[in-house]
């Protein structure tokens, strides 16, 4: 073993980090002060990209769409995941079958899930609307109504991801000693009290994980709106990444799309830090 052995071993990391992390972070900040279409020389524009961003209706629309997505997605995901995990927790028969079934959409590409749901949610021929008709209820314009489309995507994303969170909550639930519940039973606690005062404090860190991962997921939506609605109707499903993609590869505004990427990244980090702080307070 020689002195330089560890450096030889970490050299792939240093090379990869320099090219694909350090350089792009620095270059991204440089780009935000320039206009560039990749072919012509870069043009310094000062803060013009940032000024444009603050007045850009579509940037704010993408932020707002993500917020609307998360408002439905996060509570639904946590609620369904905890419910299913609770059901599985004291299940002996068929546990591995149910677990495997809930997990199936997690491993499949978002492209597959989106194409599938595009058919399920189709206004005229979709299965969900056919079921509504069979129950003599009015059909829902899942993807056509600008005010509904993003919520439909949020439901689909929940269906795709919830299996993973069922597993994470199940791990948490199984770590609760059964004596706690027995003691609570002796005290005559209700199911809700047992959940609130025994279960919830133990699965709180998992809830935080789900909130953070879902937030990051919301800002990373791409194939879902791209395939399902192409950002429409009326840009009401335009996502952060879709807007970056559009500015870069439809208009070749590299400087502006880098500005979008930089600001979305700041928003994500800001939201996650706030969430962490809030959760730490809650735990104390």
């Amino acid at each position, binding site marked *: 073993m020689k002195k330089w052995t560890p*450096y030889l071993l970490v050299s792939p990391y240093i090379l990869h980090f320099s090219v694909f992390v350090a350089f792009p972070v620095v270059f991204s900040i440089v780009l935000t002060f320039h206009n560039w279409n990749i072919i012509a020389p870069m043009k310094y524009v000062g803060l013009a990209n940032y000024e444009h961003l603050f007045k850009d209706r579509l940037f704010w629309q993408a932020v707002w769409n993500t917020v609307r997505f998360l408002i439905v997605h996060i509570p639904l995901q946590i609620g369904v995941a905890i419910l299913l995990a609770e*059901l599985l927790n004291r299940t002996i028969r068929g546990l591995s079958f149910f677990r495997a079934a809930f*997990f199936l959409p997690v491993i499949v590409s978002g*492209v597959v899930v989106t194409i599938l749901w595009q058919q399920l949610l189709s206004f005229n021929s979709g299965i969900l609307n056919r079921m509504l008709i069979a129950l003599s209820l009015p059909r829902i314009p899942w993807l056509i109504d600008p005010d509904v489309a993003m919520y439909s995507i949020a439901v689909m994303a929940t269906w795709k991801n919830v299996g993973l969170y069922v597993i994470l909550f199940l791990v948490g639930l199984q770590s609760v000693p059964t004596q706690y519940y027995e003691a609570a039973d002796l005290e005559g606690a209700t199911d809700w009290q047992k959940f609130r005062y025994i279960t919830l404090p133990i699965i709180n860190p998992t809830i935080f994980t789900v909130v953070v991962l879902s937030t990051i997921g919301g800002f990373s939506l791409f194939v879902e709106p791209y395939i399902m609605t192409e950002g429409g109707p009326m840009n009401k499903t335009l996502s952060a990444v879709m807007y970056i993609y559009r500015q870069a590869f439809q208009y070749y505004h590299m400087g502006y799309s880098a500005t979008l990427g930089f600001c979305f990244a700041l928003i994500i980090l800001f939201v996650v830090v706030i969430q962490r702080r809030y959760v730490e307070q809650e735990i104390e």
Partner: protein
Amino acid sequence: MFQTILKYTLLILAALSFIYPFIWMVSASLSSESGLGDLTLLPVDFTWNNYVTVFTKIPLDRAFLNSAFVAVVTTSLVLVSGAMVGYALARFNFVGRNLIFYLIIFTMTLPFQITLIPNYITMVKLGWVDTYLALIVPFALNSLSILLFRQAFQSLPDALIEAARMDGAGEFRIIFQILVPNILPTVLTITILTFMGIWNEALWPLIVIRDESTMTMPQLVTLFSVGGRAEGQLGVKIAAAVMLAIPIVILYLFFQKHFIRSMASSGMKD
């Protein structure tokens, strides 16, 4: 008793809601266009036409080979690079070790939105657009795999390494012939996470590949689905989606427990 029945009813309904759409998808892809809206288990007016149409319109077989090649090569590189760096971090004391560890944590918390456009520009400047290099090299090393390898190597006894060194084994032999066989569960976890991530990735290929003969499956299916080539025929789109899902679902059927454990462990890490 009543509670047990209620519980199983709910569980079965939930399981159906996750499995049935996939069954419907397969049978819809084998049905004629008019049978598509039906809630069926079996195809209505059985036909292979949708698959025939997909394969005549897009080079899905070629895309399958591209996806398989890219996923296998990338996963191998992630394993090799992850083991090297993880071993150095776990087993050596050297100046800069903590710095590298913090850089890895920094990389993991960095939203990809910030590096997306600059990385595309790097690909353009390197002349890698429309090549496999663009699909492989940026993903050839991965922070999570380094951390998992580091953790696994830390748990191995010192005696194992010292004995190997006494025998005069080089560091690479120590890593790959002596240590790695002792941490196969970690290797399997990283293999599953990487392979699945690369197989399902659609955004990056959409950015760096324009030439149809280099496209991966999710990319080709996405473009087929949003472009006009499916001519609004739903069955054809669904058939393309089924083709994209089949390889990973088959792997899942064989390695179910490992998939679940791997994904859960990556979820815990964040």
